[in-house]
């Protein structure tokens, strides 16, 4: 299983800070697509992804036990 953390407006869209999901063997892009469907998330293509607190690209493969975080870049200032 994998813990998936959501930040900023993604957390509001999902309704909780984290979910447990089996994502081992999926790429980051595949997990994004899956979550977009399940939680009707806003566009995820520019959301930054971290695997175990390290920046990850869309084609990176997720391993069993990895913690994934989705952090949307914001523009306010």
């Amino acid at each position, binding site marked *: 299983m994998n813990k998936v*953390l959501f*930040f*900023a*407006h993604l*957390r509001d869209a999902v309704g909780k*800070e984290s979910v447990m999901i089996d994502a081992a063997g999926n790429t980051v892009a595949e997990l994004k697509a899956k979550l977009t469907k399940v939680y009707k998330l*806003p*566009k995820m*293509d*520019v959301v*930054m992804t*971290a695997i175990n*607190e*390290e*920046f*990850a*690209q869309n084609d990176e493969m997720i391993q069993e036990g990895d913690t994934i*975080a989705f*952090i*949307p*870049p*914001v*523009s*306010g*200032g």
Partner: protein
Amino acid sequence: MNERYSRQILFPGIGKEGQEKISGKHVLIIGAGALGAGNAEVLVRSGIGKVTIIDRDYVEESNLQRQQLYTEEDVAEKLPKAVAAKKHLAMINSAVKVQAHIGDATPEVLEDLTRGVDLIMDATDNFETRMVINDVSQKLQIPWIYGACVGSFGMSFTIVPGKTPCLNCLLRTIPLQGLTCDTGGIISPAVQMVIAHQTAEALKILAEDWDTLRKTFVSFDLWRNQYTSLKMSKAINKDCLSCGSNPTYPYLEHENRTKTAVLCGRDTVQIRPSASGEISLEQLARQLSSLGYKTKGNPYLLSVELEGRERIVIFKDGRALIHGTKDLTRAKTVYQKILG
């Protein structure tokens, strides 16, 4: 000078030598909103040599809750933010040279203002300008510090050419629908936390204590009690068009810029964004009406009544018409308030 900066000199990370270095440095601050005002105040108090600040907006009442330099008097006088900032900064530390520019931070203007500065502070409210800052930073090899916030959420990352990934490595494209303070609200502590992260890094760079720079991308949510710090070495893209081996600095090129045009015979400006993609009008309508904006729409466009006299009509491809103005800069401000 020693008495004024004595507590900062006592701090071992800076010391006498660091303070001397700081006092000879020139910082460019892009934007004089919440982050710009706060960053400017910290840096001017710290005794830098010179600050240049650029902004295209004027002070409004809704700024006062978080934009720490401004007063009710500035609102009454509708002072341009750059001018109001300069006025207050001069009262805080008369020894620091402050140069104020009222206007749009276009690629030409930014490249011009950046020559000769030691550091660029990002205090803008949109990704288009940040991508331009990013390209100018790479082209002229000058570091910049990204900072942004919305709601109770904030983030910062220090970009040093040749050492760290750049913003184009991280984003690859301009996010079309970034949340802004005008759509997602903002609390002052989130602003202050971003300023704290940005200015701590700035002091390290200005004191030339390069080894202590934070290499991680920080983000936090002060309301939800979240804090993360991401390692970024994997984000470096050797083919990046901004910082890779064959840079073209794409955001300094004309095609990638937001195009504005006054519509003939109408009090309307058209804006065509540089990002391509589709906007979810439904979602935007929900968000804006929950904030009290009057919206009206159909599957093709969304019309939003703004506080002033303008009305903005947004199309699915991100193109927008701003009615009630002929001022290109004003129209761009209105657009970026709503769409980031």
